[in-house]
């Protein structure tokens, strides 16, 4: 497979370029997390007819920095009876699980850290590491409410991984590849070639368009459940007992959980963008297409999805635990199976 990374071409394949490849997405994720925090505060305020933070910097744009500084300067507490190793490791495990998925996500046609042929498979495997971090945090806190919150969270995440995986698998069938870069390249051209609208193809694809649209929605809903966002935020639900699995965390460890949640949000948004919305392709065909434009389009679309996630959070009420599980197992799963079979049938007959 061609080496699709401009850093390798520039600097050769040595320690320096590999380090750069690893740290560039990290820098991006950290900067994005700051912007996402500000976006959450401001968008939620505008939806609720308030202004949000206005005093930290002009129009409040320095608010995320203020928040990070506040979290960093807090006292680092470990509860007395907590399991020290697991307690300290949990936030970093969760962040690792979120960040490791960036290894295969293409930012542009010339930048993907690891161009592997089983990219999507890897993404789903590594996503479960995040839920491992949650269970560690809940268990090691030595707090029965944290444990309850952690258990619910994990049950929710693994239940919704299946409809998400079915949605992605259907597109894999359509694209005949698990390589994210290839899936992305296949959607070049204008927005009608996106897999949301059935992928590249002409008349025949009208049969699959309803199914791909439904699958995109299923994946989006499952992604809300994966990241513990409303309407699926029972693990953090404030009107329940306490704050869920990160009750006993403060200071930099809480900041890590916080960052991990926002990183997770972008990961699922990035996958939705790559698979369904054309990734780094421009929606106008050849206009504004290119390696550098690719980065812009990718980040733009990913951020739009994140904005929709934020929008939904402040609009809808939350589900009860049993209703949540009912939705995942009895409604989303059968529908995604039906769509998967329909798309497989279409590909077979094509």
């Amino acid at each position, binding site marked *: 497979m061609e080496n699709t990374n401009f850093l390798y071409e520039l600097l050769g394949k040595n320690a320096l370029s590999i380090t750069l490849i690893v740290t560039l997405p990290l820098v991006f994720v950290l900067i994005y997390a700051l912007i996402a925090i500000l976006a959450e505060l401001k968008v939620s305020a505008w939806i609720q007819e308030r202004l949000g933070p206005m005093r930290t910097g002009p129009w409040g744009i320095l608010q995320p920095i203020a928040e990070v500084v506040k979290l960093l300067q807090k006292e680092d507490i470990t509860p007395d009876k907590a399991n020290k190793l697991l307690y300290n490791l949990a936030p970093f495990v969760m962040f690792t699980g979120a960040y490791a998925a960036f290894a295969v996500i293409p930012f542009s046609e010339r930048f993907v850290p690891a161009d592997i042929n089983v990219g999507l498979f890897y993404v789903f495997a590594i996503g479960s590491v995040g839920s491992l971090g949650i269970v560690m945090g809940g268990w090691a806190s030595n707090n029965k409410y944290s444990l309850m919150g952690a258990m619910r969270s994990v049950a929710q995440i693994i239940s919704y991984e299946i409809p998400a995986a079915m949605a992605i698998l259907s597109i894999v069938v359509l694209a005949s590849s698990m390589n994210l870069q290839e899936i992305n390249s296949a959607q070049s051209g204008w927005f009608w070639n996106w897999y949301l609208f059935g992928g590249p193809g002409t008349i025949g694809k009208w049969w699959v368009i309803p199914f791909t649209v439904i699958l995109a929605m299923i994946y989006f809903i499952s992604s809300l459940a994966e990241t513990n966002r409303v309407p699926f935020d029972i693990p953090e639900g404030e009107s329940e007992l306490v704050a869920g699995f990160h009750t006993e965390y403060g200071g930099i460890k809480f900041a890590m959980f916080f960052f991990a949640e926002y990183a997770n949000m972008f990961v699922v948004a990035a996958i939705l963008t790559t698979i369904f919305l054309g990734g780094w392709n421009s929606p106008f065909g050849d206009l504004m297409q290119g390696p550098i434009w690719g980065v812009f389009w990718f980040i733009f679309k990913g951020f739009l999805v994140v904005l929709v996630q934020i929008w939904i959070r402040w609009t809808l009420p939350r589900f*009860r635990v049993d209703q949540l599980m009912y939705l995942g197992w009895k409604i989303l799963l059968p529908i995604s199976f039906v769509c998967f079979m329909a798309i497989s049938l279409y590909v077979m007959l094509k």
Partner: protein
Amino acid sequence: MSEKKRIELEYSQLDSERMRINVGPQHPSTHGVLRLEVEVDGEIVTEVVPHMGYLHRSFEKYCEQLTYLQVIPYIDRMDYIAAINNEWTYVLGMEKLLGIKVPEKVEYMRVIMAELNRIANHQIAVATFGLDAGAFTPFLFFFRDRELIIWILEKLSGARLLYNYLRVGGLAADVYPGFKEDCLNVVKQVRKTNAEIMDLLINNKIFIQRSANVGILPADVAINYGCSGPVLRGSGVKYDLRKDEPYSIYDRFDFDIPVGKGEVGVIGDCWNRNIVRVYEMEESCRIIEQAVAQMPMEGDVKAMVPKKIKPPVGEVYFRAENPKGDLGFYIVSNGTDKPERIKARGTSFVNLSVLPEISQGYMFADLILILGSIDIVLGEVDR
């Protein structure tokens, strides 16, 4: 004491799977300081014991040493969300004891303010109910509209929440010019927001799933426990003191009594109690419009206020329709200018007593919603 014995007995026979959890005294919602001792079997609630008294301020004892005029700020602070209705009930009781008939203007003013407070109270009730279900935005929409009402009352009385405005025989201060326009403004805004909230919250599928068929209160149980207000009307019982025992000038207005009809869910569940409150806001808007149209602007609001309140020896029990239900005052006078005893029949106190009955068998998340749908304010529960 017998309650303690019952709990000890329970502990000795405690099934090892059941867990006793403490909820409160501080809640994330604005219910106040209430402690609920909940016994859960997994997720299912098997028993709820409310412990109150965290906000007890000995009002009734205090009132025995104050004059009838000085009592009014204390009456405010019982149901601090809709203070005018508290004052009005007390003042109506006193006026019955003294045999005072207030001028027309005062009557209309009182009705308008009481209905404005009713809207304000229901706004908070529906907003916090949505907050308990996880919807953050309706809370802010309602509070934005509530500010309009509070500004009117601030212009009238000087205070935003605890007014000390009604007097035995009249009001403390006159109405300001522009009062009628402000009231009609409020009515317009309330109607607009209500329409928005119907879409955003009330008819939202997730909200319906959370609140319909939850906390079902049968009508006979509600009557036996002495519930009143939206809790009773949500169960289908059409009983409202403004129509069934009309006081003041309510018989001049044309309004309906909304009752839970089971449009969604079952009659007597949380959704129906909630929708009764939303419909009552609309009815209050109608009353305000009619009152504003009929109200005379001339007249002295202090014309019938006696210089010194020294009622004859006797007692009176007066009850009126608070936004939360049936509020009653039992005033005993011994001939001096200080009351012998003032007893308040707190609406929320009686409504809260039905909580253990209707929350058994539901999940823990539903318990929070049921508590929100009863709409208590701890100032009234504890006094």
